[in-house]
């Protein structure tokens, strides 16, 4: 998409790149001789192992900026007052639908996981009970491992072979989408199906994963689908919501969908809204926020309602999220002023552990990208992880001597007795032999002496490495619950040790409270979210009084963690080579000006351009440009032409498809005038240029772009500093920013990748390289 006329030098063809490097005239004189090292670097075959300092060419920007061409103005003029009102109402309807469907999907996932996991654990439990007495527990171990890997295999196959974008939690992808990057296939129906089935398989398969992250992705896909009123995959067009078929509207709805997903996952409607705010805040307004909140509320209460039917308590709206932290009784777990330093210390521990987690996962992910990239290998890896998870869990349970009496209210769903006395159960088994959500809840709420310190320590250690190993596999699964689980385990350990140290302190050192704080610290240390995570945790526990400690803990965890390494999602965004724009331009970049940042020279089109030229420009595979400044020639001078507009590749393709040529318009006066609707119908999958046939005669025709181009594109002068360009670009959600000189002549073009390549590294400002992936 980089808009440059130079032939892109493919790294393998060293000679050609060398030639172009010398042959292309540079605006301010060639500086080549002064950079011999750079030249020698260019001369080498430019194939490097994948690393984090790359920007991939396959990612493009969304067209968030409205294309104000004449067609648009015409349509706006035709639209009545009522039309605008209807549009506003249908926005609300769409948001309600998004919430409803997201809630339904969450409900489906929840019930499916509960039923299937229940079945699996029942089978394994019976088997273990049978073999405890007569001997042969290794067979149970094998059964458990095989069951796990078989289920995970299904999940991994559909992800690895059918839709690789559905792997992982999906939060990095949605973050990128809300940032304005078009990630290919991320909001397709197929992705949704794979995601939902994949997450069910991976949770049932006993991996150290949660189903909350994928909910956010699912919500986003639902939003992108519903708001369009049609499905391109199913080839069904319901002829509704046609106005919303453009990136601007779609992205707003996607942020509503992500919020609905968060809210369904955690029962946290406000947290969902704030999540969207935190991730995509540069394009925000009050009405949109209100609509997103509406979608969130609808989603959490849809889930609520259908789960109440499932639990045979129709109308009881008390299970609002996929993960329910349970109620913290305010009197038993009240906190005191002197505990605040303890909480902050826990935040620091969480930050350290989170940084360790991220560093380990970073190296693992690099290894995976470099060596485990074939789908069959990925499936095998996932199966191995599942088998090892089962093995480690079994071994832990087998050698655990921590027996606890069964509670009166039977909070343990699948108690395993094993070698414990009758009437007691193995407490390691409640942590391992359970779905992760239930384990979190039992760590929060079980009696203070339920787990002994050794159990908690071992559990933390093993689960930490298992979760770290699992994240990044080719299965769709989230990292929220494992993080919470690790944190809850060491938090509980912390609380127990505190109670042991302070002999009289057992009253205030309630392990459940410290488990909650530990969970928040660990999660904050790994994902480094701030505002939204605080609100999500507060809402999920249903206890506002914990707001302050949770906030302090998350702040500490973020500060400590950021000292070492970035958040997990940011690491994965970087490793996928996404041109992600952060909030601010990198510091110390004010000396860079637009002239140095931009791509140049630019492929421009004339206002009345020959069809042949357009087709050639579009079909040039080496320069996959997407936006073209439209210029008008000053008569009788050979100076560069002046800028008069900007037109996109997608628009040109629609024009070519409909053969909007000047000559044809003259000969056929009755020809229907092209409308905005024709552009919308082709959205979002515009046909490639190769599929459009232009005959030799038609190549000689002319095309008038006046009506279709955006007549007032944003421009900056050459001397604008990078942070200024950045701010404009980020705040308006631009895709192309034209750099002009003082006579309005096109000098260069700034796109997302030109800005995203600068980042502040260890040695000051560094530049990322573009790569073909």
């Amino acid at each position: 998409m980089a808009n440059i006329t130079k032939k892109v030098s493919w790294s393998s063809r060293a000679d050609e790149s060398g030639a172009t490097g010398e042959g292309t005239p540079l605006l301010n004189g060639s500086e080549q001789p002064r950079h011999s090292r750079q030249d020698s670097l260019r001369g080498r075959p430019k194939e490097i192992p994948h690393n984090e300092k790359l920007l991939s060419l396959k990612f493009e920007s969304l067209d968030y900026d409205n294309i104000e061409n004449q067609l648009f103005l015409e349509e706006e003029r035709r639209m009545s007052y009522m039309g605008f009102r209807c549009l506003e109402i249908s926005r609300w309807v769409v948001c309600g639908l998004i919430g409803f469907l997201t809630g339904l999907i969450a409900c489906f996932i929840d019930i499916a996981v509960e039923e299937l996991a229940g079945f699996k654990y029942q089978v394994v439990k019976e088997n273990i009970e049978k073999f405890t007495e007569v001997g042969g527990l290794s067979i149970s171990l094998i059964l458990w491992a095989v069951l796990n890997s078989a289920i995970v295999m299904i999940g991994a196959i559909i992800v690895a072979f059918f839709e690789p974008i559905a792997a992982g939690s999906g939060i990095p992808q949605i973050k990128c989408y809300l940032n304005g990057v078009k990630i290919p296939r991320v909001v397709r129906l197929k992705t949704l199906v794979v995601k939902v089935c994949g997450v069910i398989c991976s949770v049932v398969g006993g991996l150290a994963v949660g189903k909350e992250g994928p909910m956010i992705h699912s919500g986003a896909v639902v939003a992108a689908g519903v708001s369009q009123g049609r499905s391109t995959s199913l080839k069904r067009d319901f002829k509704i919501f046609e106005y919303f078929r453009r990136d601007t509207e779609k992205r707003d709805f996607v942020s509503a969908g992500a919020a609905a997903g968060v809210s369904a996952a955690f029962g946290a409607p406000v947290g969902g809204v704030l999540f969207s705010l935190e991730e995509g805040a540069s394009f925000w307004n009050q009405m949109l926020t209100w609509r997103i909140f509406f979608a969130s509320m609808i989603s959490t209460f849809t889930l609520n309602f259908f789960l109440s039917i499932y639990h045979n308590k129709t109308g009881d709206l008390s299970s609002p999220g996929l993960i329910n932290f349970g109620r913290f009784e305010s009197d038993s777990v009240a906190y005191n002023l002197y505990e605040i330093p303890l909480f902050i210390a826990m935040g620091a521990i969480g930050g350290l552990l989170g940084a360790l987690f991220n560093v380990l996962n970073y190296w693992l992910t690099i290894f995976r990208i470099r060596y485990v990239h074939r789908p069959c290998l990925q499936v095998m890896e996932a199966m191995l992880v599942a088998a090892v998870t089962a093995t480690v869990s079994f071994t832990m349970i087998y050698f655990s001597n921590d027996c606890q009496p069964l509670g009166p209210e039977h909070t343990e769903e699948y108690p395993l007795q094993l070698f414990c006395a009758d009437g007691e159960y193995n407490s390691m088994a409640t942590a391992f032999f359970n779905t992760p959500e239930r384990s979190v809840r039992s760590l929060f709420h079980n009696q203070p002496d339920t787990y002994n310190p050794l159990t908690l320590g071992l559990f933390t250690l093993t689960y930490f490495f298992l979760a770290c190993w699992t994240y990044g596999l080719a299965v769709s699964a989230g990292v929220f619950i494992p993080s919470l689980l690790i944190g809850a385990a060491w938090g509980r350990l912390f609380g127990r040790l505190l109670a042991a140290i302070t002999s009289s302190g057992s009253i205030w050192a309630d392990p459940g409270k410290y488990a909650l704080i530990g969970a928040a610290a660990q999660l904050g240390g790994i994902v480094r979210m701030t505002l939204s995570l605080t609100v999500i945790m507060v809402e999920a526990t249903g206890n506002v009084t914990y707001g302050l400690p949770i906030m302090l803990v998350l702040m500490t965890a973020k500060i400590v963690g950021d000292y070492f390494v970035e958040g997990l999602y940011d690491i994965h965004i970087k490793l996928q080579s996404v041109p992600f724009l952060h909030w601010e331009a990198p510091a110390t970049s004010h000396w860079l000006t637009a002239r140095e940042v931009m791509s140049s020279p630019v492929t421009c089109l004339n206002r009345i351009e020959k069809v042949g030229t357009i087709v050639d420009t579009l079909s040039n595979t080496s320069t996959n440009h997407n936006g073209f400044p439209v210029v008008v020639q000053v008569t009788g001078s050979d100076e560069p032409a002046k800028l008069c507009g900007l037109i996109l590749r997608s628009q040109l393709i629609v024009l070519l498809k409909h053969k909007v040529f000047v000559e044809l318009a003259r000969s056929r006066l009755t020809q229907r005038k092209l409308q905005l609707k024709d552009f919308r119908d082709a959205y979002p999958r515009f046909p490639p240029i190769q599929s459009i046939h232009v005959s030799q005669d038609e190549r000689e025709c002319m095309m008038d772009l006046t009506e279709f181009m955006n007549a007032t594109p944003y421009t900056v002068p050459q001397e604008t500093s990078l942070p200024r360009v950045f701010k404009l670009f980020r705040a308006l959600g631009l895709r192309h920013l034209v750099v002009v000189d003082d006579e309005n002549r096109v000098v260069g073009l700034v796109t997302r990748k030109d800005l995203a390549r600068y980042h502040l590294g260890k040695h000051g400002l560094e530049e990322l390289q573009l790569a073909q992936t």
Partner: protein
Amino acid sequence: MSLSKSSLSLLLFILNMSTIALSDGLNLTALHSADKLKQIPSLNRAAAAVVVNSPMFKPAVEPIFSLNLLSSFPEDLEISDYCKELLNIFGQRYVAYVSCLVPAARPVTVCQKCFSSFGSLREAYANISSESGPGNVSCSESLLRGDRLMVVNQLNTSLEELWTSSACDNCVTKGLQRLTNDTLYFMNTLNQTDDCFDKYRQGNHTELCKNCKSTYQELNELYGRMEKNQTMCIDIEDSMNMTRRLWSKYYNCSVPREETVPVIAVSSFMLFLPIIFYLSSFLHSEQKKRKLIHPKRAKSYTSLMNIQDKLG
């Protein structure tokens, strides 16, 4: 009923002015201001001294007043003989039930031993709370909700709670007539097991483990079934707990951990697999390379080296 603030401050003002006026004022308003005066922080020493120095107020006023209160009750507010009788019966049965409960506390036999006395207590309470007695007299109003304390009600509630949490309803037939057949059967099986334990108590415990295993298993399974059907009360739970503890802890008949070697073997094999996998994919899979693309810039001195030059 209460004095307003302004009148109180007025009163204080008067207090300071003269003690005669004070005593008059107190006489008039003793009832209302006695405790209010104590709460006024700005009360000066003089006033406090006066209150202390006039001990005749409180003792003198209150007994007379309360006597007056009792005698002044009209006839229909007083508790009827019928209700008194009911209250009496309730008291007796309460005592009976509690004296049954206490010795049955450990080991827990509260359901087996005391269900009948609880039945009669419940009956007595039902009589009190019923809306219509003979002659259309209702005692529930006067006995149960007559005052803030509600002694009868609270006593009954606490015992009802005890009954509910013991889940005795599961072991006793409806109407609290007798123990259910399930319970009797369980008790029978339990006794068999206990007998068996008694028989082999002397000597080697392995002998006991071997010989009593079948009866114990039977008991365990029966208990499991009852647990599933929710037909258990505290008596059964407790006796089962005791028996299990005897079996597992005292006689040490739990399953021993014997298969350590095969489990370790299988799990180390499993743990070995990923190492092979990663090694082989590291050695045999070709490393994924990325092709670099060099975009053309207007000025090439924006390259990385140059940035470093400038910064460094």
